[in-house]
């Protein structure tokens, strides 16, 4: 058994890159840490969604029990309530005993009985002011309709309808986007996910580089592939693992939030995810070669932390400061300026896109600057990697690694 393959000799550059990337994918998608990590993030998001459902979802839905004559009010009550932006669920209650026990148990917020003109409400401790207004309004309409009829008005319903259709005209100097809050939450989650993905998978590139140096396998590999092919294959492979996790996590999050009714803006969320994927790719490639170069400076896993910390710090500062600025005002000058800085754009821009308005020129400028950054850092990181990857021993000085 000698050379069994075609007498080909060296593998092509793309072949080598694909093979290296494939190995990274195969190895890393199968690791426990990937599966557990993905499951953990999904669990956190699920927990957040459940929290939203129980706190806010429960609060803005009012359970009203209808007893006796009041049972006919079910439909009008729900309709009127929706005019007040209140969600009311109705159910029938057989007698006062049931009403009391359900109120005690918190299953019902109020029990309404009596005829439409003389409604009686039983509550545990207090009546929701909105519900009080609605019920009062319904009662008054009943009384008014009866009065109109006895006064000889031919069509009391038409008169009431006309009266009810009258509204004050409100003019706003700056309209508040009714979706603003939800958009903000989507934006923040995206910023968080991108920060996690870029810092985690960037650090994995560095760890992979150190692993190959520490185990010395890099010399065997470099006897057949060029340093840039090995680096590119590794960066692509690990980047795809990160992309897979980002899409799985964000997709699961959107699905859960939509199903639970917490989020009504699935188109905004999907758009944000699409932007997030683009910015993940830009941000990951911006940081990955820097991480790789940093990793190549050391020969042991124990030393890795010291060279990774400075890189990670940039991301952390961008994340913390950027998130705070965004919370205060996604369209402030500070937020807009920070989101244009190449090292910070990848985590802040997609957040801004989700939360507010981003001018097309800002987006284009940020993408262009980031691409320029990728070119610069790939060159820098690649040079450091090439010069440092075969040097073993103590940590290499950055200047030496750049000089070669």
């Amino acid at each position, binding site marked *: *058994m000698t050379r069994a393959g075609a007498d080909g000799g060296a593998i092509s550059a793309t072949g080598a890159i694909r093979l290296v990337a494939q190995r990274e994918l195969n190895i890393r998608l199968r690791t426990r840490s990937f599966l557990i990590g993905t499951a953990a993030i999904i669990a956190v998001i699920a927990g957040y969604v459940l929290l939203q459902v129980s706190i806010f979802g429960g609060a803005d839905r009012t359970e009203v029990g209808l007893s006796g004559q009041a049972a006919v009010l079910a439909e009008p009550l729900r309709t009127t309530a929706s005019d007040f932006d209140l969600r009311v669920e109705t159910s029938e209650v057989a007698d006062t005993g049931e009403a009391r026990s359900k109120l005690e148990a918190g299953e019902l917020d109020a029990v309404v009985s009596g005829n439409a003109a003389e409604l009686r409400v039983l509550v545990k401790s207090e009546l929701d002011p909105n519900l009080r207004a609605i019920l009062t309004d319904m009662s008054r309409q009943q009384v008014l309709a009866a009065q109109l009829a006895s006064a000889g008005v031919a069509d009391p319903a038409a008169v009431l309808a006309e009266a009810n259709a009258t509204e004050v005209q409100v003019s706003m100097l700056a309209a508040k986007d009714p979706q603003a809050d939800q958009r903000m939450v989507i934006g923040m989650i995206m910023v968080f996910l991108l920060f996690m993905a870029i810092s985690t998978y960037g650090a994995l590139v560095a760890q992979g580089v150190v692993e190959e140096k520490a185990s010395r396998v890099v010399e065997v590999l470099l006897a057949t592939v060029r340093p840039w092919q090995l680096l590119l294959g590794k960066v692509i492979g690990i980047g795809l693992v990160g992309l897979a996790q980002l899409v799985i996590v964000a997709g699961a999050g959107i699905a859960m939030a939509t199903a639970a009714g917490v989020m009504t803006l699935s188109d905004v969320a999907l758009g944000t995810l699409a932007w997030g994927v683009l910015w993940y790719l830009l941000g990951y490639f911006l940081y990955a070669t820097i991480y790789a170069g940093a990793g190549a400076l050391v020969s042991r896993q124990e030393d890795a932390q010291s060279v990774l910390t400075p890189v990670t710090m940039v991301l952390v500062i961008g994340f913390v400061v950027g998130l705070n600025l965004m919370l205060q005002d996604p369209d402030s000058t500070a937020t807009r300026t920070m989101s244009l800085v190449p090292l910070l754009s990848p985590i802040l821009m997609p957040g801004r896109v989700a939360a507010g308005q981003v001018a097309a020129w800002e987006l284009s400028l940020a993408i262009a600057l980031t691409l320029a950054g990728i070119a610069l850092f790939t060159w820098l990181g690649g040079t450091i990697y090439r010069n440092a990857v075969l040097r073993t021993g103590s940590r290499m000085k950055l200047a030496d690694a750049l000089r070669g």
Partner: protein
Amino acid sequence: MRPHTLEVDGLRKRYGDLVALDGVSFAVNGGELFGFVGSNGAGKTTTMRIMLGVLAADSGAVRFDGEPATRHTRARMGYMPEERGLYPKMKVLDQLVYLARLHGLATNHAHAAAEHWIARLGLSDRRETEVQKLSLGNQQRVQLAAALVHGPDALVLDEPFSGLDPLAVDVMSQVLREKAAAGVPVVFSSHQLDLVERLCDRVGIIRSGQMVAVGGVGELTTGASSQLRVDVSGAPDGWADELPGVRVLRAAQTSTVFELAAGADDQAVLHAALAAGQVTRFDRHRPTLAELFRDVVTAGERP
């Protein structure tokens, strides 16, 4: 398989102010086992790394079959670095298949070759084991398999025998001989000079980045100036220092090794020895490789 040749010609390499290689040249013919010896730091590893293209030389050339080595030809060399390197968490079979494919073998051929060497080197029941869980000896076998799995047309092995148990030394020797017999030029470095002497057809000795001797083992040791070994018990220290026509190379306990100048009379030495004490041994001595090595290496260290 037609025999291949592997040649280095005038390799120079500096690391800052340190001259690592200062014009290293030698050639290895197909079918030949070439032993590359030298002290630590003499330049063996640097030379081998340059042969594989892992390092770039400042000047000089590496030639394969008479042509400057390219990426294409280097992919057909097998390499075992001094610092053993494998992915610790990868299984033996996966690892070998991966390395074979990186050398350009198609997947199915890579599998077949990996299985072949796993069986050949006695690793069959370890093929699904992670490398880090193997004994050191088995890790060395996997490392050898990694150098051989793509069916290389030349082998460059840096200290392949270090850390091997006697059984593994035999397996390694046998494999290297087989490869050489198949027309593959085999270069390996080693500090085990008796092994090199026994195994190699030719030897190159490097000192401070320069080749100080290259040639057949017999040729080198015969070519060394004529030596005389005399064992005398009871002789005073320095009994041999003033003898004409000879030079003392080494003296240890009762044993003294002389270098005889051309035409010098060894009988005069015998007389002097008999006068000095009781002669227990007197012979013309053909130096071993180890002695030759010691002589040429220490010769250069004396000003």
